[in-house]
């Protein structure tokens, strides 16, 4: 190991470019034609298939797989995209091991599910590579709808509304659309700028105006949007991050995992992105795993992920945990942070072991750290929003909020898992409900 890798502090270029590129290459490389054929042949074309029930967007999985096996990936893609316009991204980022593939009957039979995710990617990649957009807009209805947030929920909602002939304007705070597809998903899941390419492809439907740099609460208000539009959809995700709430939380080197990941997703040269030698990640969800794994891939020597409860209760799936372990991330469960030590800059994090109900055991340990990532959950931010249920926007039916003419979906809305595919489903269903209301 050379000096660069061993250097303490937060430094760029710990590994050379080639090693970094290899680490960040496609996690699930695409299937070639023959592989897809063989993988598709394993599907039993189940009756009332359990995989479909498990897919939040209800994609007709047996049908699209059969279309692949008969050499018609374009038709397969249409089957997918009719239900899930971000089927390409979902094929890459869905935790299939806890969704469709978990309940695949071949998982039951032999512990090896049909590779639904990779087959979905095969089909959607084929269509996107051809640059064709398989849907047409209906005749204009003259109705205007505002969508706040260009994440998966907002995009799915906007696309469905545009397809039905409505005029949609998306108000997006960030300079680029895509939401967490663009700024959050691990880089090895969305390679070759896929998030941006997918948005461009989606916009081919027409009838959607994207206005970047528009922040609800700063540049626009909910009341203003309601006045100027026939309906409003809120899909702004979770913009805030929970604090650690321990002393030293503000020391230099302690940052939010989502910011680190957003930087990582936007940087053009990964080797230029600084990372610590001894990294500590606090949290147990997908964000924690992604921050830990990507730190390792950038060359951090010691990466420890500390989660306060037992391994079984981690939000990250077993597959994600194993992925982290295989990349050399050390996972410690049942320990909560009590203090961040250091002189201005972080030097150590002190933890206390806890039982599963988070009762402290009195036993403490310290981990050396020059970089600490908080990954203990995101929160909804914003004022003047419809009523909340807990910490998210309360919804009933297909995303109806307590304010008339305002719908919400995705991470910002209560109910459902915080997953890309769930956001797509909620955005799509809200669009159908809005359409029914406006045209009914």
């Amino acid at each position, binding site marked *: 190991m050379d000096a660069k890798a061993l250097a303490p502090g937060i430094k760029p270029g710990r590994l050379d470019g080639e090693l970094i590129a290899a680490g960040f290459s496609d996690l699930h490389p695409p299937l070639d034609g023959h592989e897809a054929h063989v993988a598709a042949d394993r599907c*039993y074309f189940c009756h009332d298939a*359990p995989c479909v029930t498990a897919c939040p967007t209800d994609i007709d999985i047996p049908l699209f797989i059969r279309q692949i096996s008969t050499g018609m990936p374009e038709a397969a893609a249409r089957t997918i995209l009719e239900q899930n316009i971000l089927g390409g991204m979902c094929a890459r980022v869905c935790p299939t091991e806890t969704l469709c593939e978990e309940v695949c009957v071949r998982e039951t039979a032999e512990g090896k599910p049909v590779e639904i995710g990779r087959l979905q990617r095969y089909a959607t990649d084929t269509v996107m590579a051809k640059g064709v957009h398989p849907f047409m807009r209906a005749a204009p209805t003259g109705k205007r709808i505002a969508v706040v947030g260009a994440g998966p929920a907002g995009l799915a909602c906007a696309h469905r509304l545009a397809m039905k002939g409505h005029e949609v304007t998306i108000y997006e705070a960030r300079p680029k659309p895509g939401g967490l597809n663009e700024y959050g998903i691990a880089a090895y899941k969305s390679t070759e700028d896929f998030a941006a390419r997918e948005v461009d492809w989606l916009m081919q439907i027409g009838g959607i105006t994207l206005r970047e740099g528009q922040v609800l609460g700063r540049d626009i208000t909910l009341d203003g949007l309601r006045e100027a539009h026939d309906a409003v959809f809120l899909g702004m995700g979770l913009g805030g991050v929970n604090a650690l709430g321990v002393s030293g939380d503000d020391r230099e080197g302690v940052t939010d995992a989502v910011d680190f990941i957003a930087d990582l997703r936007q940087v053009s040269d990964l080797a230029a992105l600084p990372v610590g030698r001894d990294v500590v990640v606090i949290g147990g969800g997908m964000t924690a795993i992604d921050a830990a794994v990507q730190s390792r891939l950038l060359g951090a020597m010691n990466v420890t992920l500390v989660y306060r409860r037992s391994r079984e209760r981690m939000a990250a799936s077993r597959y994600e945990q194993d992925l982290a372990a295989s990349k050399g991330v050390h996972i410690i469960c049942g320990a909560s942070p009590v203090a961040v030590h250091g002189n201005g800059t972080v030097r150590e994090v002190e933890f206390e072991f806890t039982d599963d109900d988070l009762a402290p055991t009195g036993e403490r340990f310290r981990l050396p750290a020059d970089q600490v990532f908080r990954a203990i959950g995101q929160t909804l931010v914003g004022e003047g929003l419809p009523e909340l249920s807990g910490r998210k926007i309360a919804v009933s039916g297909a995303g109806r909020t307590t304010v008339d003419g305002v719908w919400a979906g995705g991470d910002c809305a209560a109910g459902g898992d915080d997953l890309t595919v769930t956001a797509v489903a909620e955005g799509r269903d809200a669009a159908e409900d809005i359409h029914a209301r406006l045209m009914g």
Partner: protein
Amino acid sequence: MADLTTNFVGITSPNPFWLASAPPTDKEYNVRRAFEAGWGGVVWKTLGEEGPPVVNVNGPRYGAVWGADRQLLGLNNIELITDRPLEVNLREIAAVKRDYPDRAVIVSLMVPCTEEAWKTILPLVEETGADGVELNFGCPHGMSERGMGSAVGQVPEYITMVTRWVKQYSNLPCIVKLTPNITDIRKPAMAAFEGGADAVSLINTINSITSVDLDLFAPEPTIDGKGAHGGYCGPAVKPIALNMVAEIARDPEMPGLPISGIGGVTTWKDAAEFLALGAGNVQVCTAAMTYGFKVVQEMISGLSQYLDDKGMTLDDLVGRAVPNVSDWQNLNLNYVTKARIDQDACIKCGRCYAACEDTSHQAIDMSEDRVFTVKDDECVACNLCVNVCPVEDCITMERVEAGATDERTGTVVPAEFGDWTTHPNNPMRRTAAE
């Protein structure tokens, strides 16, 4: 290890696995290597008469049907008989037979339908020391356009005539190879039997078009934009071949006519099935063309182990299933079964349900939580669910014992045998003797 030595019409071979007359047996180089690999015998690639040899196409001559992982399920060919000079083949046959006296070497022949042509070629074959001849009345393409091959095999009178000539002008055992491209295989077999054939072998390939090129709109294999029907063989044809073998084996008009079983033999099990249906040995072509000569080693070890496990000799196996090949009208209508689903084995795919609900008798129930059960009052025991279930032995057919009530018909299952011939609904029924 069971002894696999076979005596087929007086020709002995160390095992019942012969290579069929086809490309694997088209030259000395191949046949020597086949014998080294363990094949018990070969039927040399069909020879034609003296003179300029036939020519083959120079474009693709094979087409295929595949499973998903390119597993070859069926092969189709438009190859003709040997395209090498007669004297070269005869010289090589003699050399091989001299060096492998314990193996069977049969010479396949196809010459025009004249007494002279057969009279001329037979002594040349005898001189090689070959063990017998096989008359190729089966090739369904090319040669048949010239009045040979299946053109002869489709006319029983020609078969009898040629077989008589062969028996008249040679002392060699004569095997007549039949074409399946006819409606009743017993007719040509009977013709061979009447002509004095020592055995029949079957099947040769089946007329086929494997696929159509949907850009060129031409059958495959496509030669300069056109295609001709070929002959189909390989695993896909086995069921057709098995039936034809059984039809001959159980025909009382041809008692004891030896049969060499051909068509889709790929494993020891396929071979055992042909043997059980009355074949005295088997011939193989496609399996060798797909996997090479080494496949015979699995066939040998598998068949020996099976016989050992069963405590049977090879002779015990030959024809063992023939008495159980019956006619529909003699099947026991009082044998009542119901499908049973093993809930522990079931993976809840719902295929049995879809099949029964959509296309059969609505006899499978699916609960809210995907438990699949058979409704005995609807199940006619058709077996479709068993056939579509992806889990082996998950659905089985269980017999309803005599004396119990069949819930579908509401009648008590009789203990005695009862078939269509005596069934009350049969207007032609035979009344039981008083």
